[in-house]
């Protein structure tokens, strides 16, 4: 199940989407206490992960350069000044 993937490995979009699914499931209220407990804790972990990503993210930059055999390579972009 996708849900067992460690929270830290998820991208922002994946974590945010799963958090939304968990909240909806909990609001429906069909789950047992143990299931709800487990989802709630996972939801908290996802929320924390998202929040950390938002605060710590740094824009990544790369640039296309022509590759030897045709086509392009992506290399890190060096900014000037």
């Amino acid at each position: 199940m996708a849900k067992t993937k460690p929270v830290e490995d998820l991208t922002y979009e994946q974590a945010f989407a799963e958090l939304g699914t968990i909240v909806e499931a909990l609001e429906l209220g069909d789950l047992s206490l143990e299931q709800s407990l487990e989802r709630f804790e996972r939801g908290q972990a996802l929320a924390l992960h998202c929040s950390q990503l938002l605060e710590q993210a740094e824009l990544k930059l790369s640039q296309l350069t022509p590759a030897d055999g045709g086509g392009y390579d992506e290399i890190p972009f060096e900014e000037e000044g």
Partner: protein
Amino acid sequence: MFQSSFLTGEPSVWSVAELTRYLRSLIESDYRLQSLWVRGEVSNVSRPSSGHLYFTLKDAGATLRCVMWRGQVAQQLNLPQDGQSFEVHGHLSLYEAGGQYQLYADRFRRAGEGELYQAFLDLKDRLAAEGLFEAERKRELPDHPRRIGIVSSPTGAALQDALDVLRRRYPLGHVVLAPSPVQGEAAVEGLIEALAGLQERQIDVILLIRGGGSMEDLAAFNHEGLARAVAASKVPIVAGVGHETDFTIVDFVADRRAPTPSAAAEIAAPDRQALADLLLSLQRRLAGSFQTELEAGRWQLAGLAGRLRAASPRAQLANRRQQVDAFEGRLHSSLKAGLRLSRSRLDGLQATLRAVGPPAVLARGYAVVRDSAGLVVRSVGQVNPGDPLELRLADGTVGADVTGVEADSR
């Protein structure tokens, strides 16, 4: 009226005013001189405090004085400067007091721009007729563009402006720059190749941007080849070319048009603060969903008799409920005040969530009681002395047997 003398053969004598007025009427009666374009090199530009604009147009053989009244000067985007080649439109007349014929100008443009502009209009009409500008062709931009392509000059201000916006608003993104000259001879081919290079690289949206300039400077963005490449792109394109008032063909073909390069970046990328607000609202719902569960009494909380005698569960719940309401109220008003979510606030939120969540409830001594069939025991009527029970505590389970049953008297 002038004196004519057929009989004597002497030339008639004009007054200066009569002659000047005659010349003026000659000029004003020639319809070709009432609306005309004149091209020449600008010199002697002067703009006295009256606000009117005086200048001359000259070429190898002659000089023409020009004037534009201040009301019309205010409407012009680019004023002529000494040495520039300009085309000026207006009507010719004669300023009697100065004995000077003048061109009374109502508009002007850089020389050569006339043809460029006409070509722009022709291409625009042709592509519009092919349906390339239709609203239905324009695609929605992705909500979370992970990879953002930028086609621009690597040394231009447009790129820096866009990167500044993206760093501030959406640092989660990954920018892939496809560099190209944005004016001059190599521009069109460079831009087309840059767009092509970004097509198969999992790019979610492309910004096609450059800073402001004259019509010649922006010419590449009015080129048919580039327009067709933009139309054919599999990736949605946001065009941010020049200043707010500059419209190029590419602006019409692109999926979105932005007035400036910075605006293009803002349109393409979501705002980090908006994402944080969404996250906060989900967290509130997460906490709120448990509140609802507790109130509905879905889960049975049975206390061990000894520990529960001191405090009534109902009072504990009401207390917690009030705390969460107050906390939510504070959250709500601080959201309205638009404060940024900082780490310490998040920690505070999480601490409170932990306090009201089920793990904390169990940790305070509540247990979930099940019978031998695994059903949750909610009432004394479900068990008899001697029945085995399983108690789920915060850190494990306990087996117990019912020693006695006593219903509360109310």
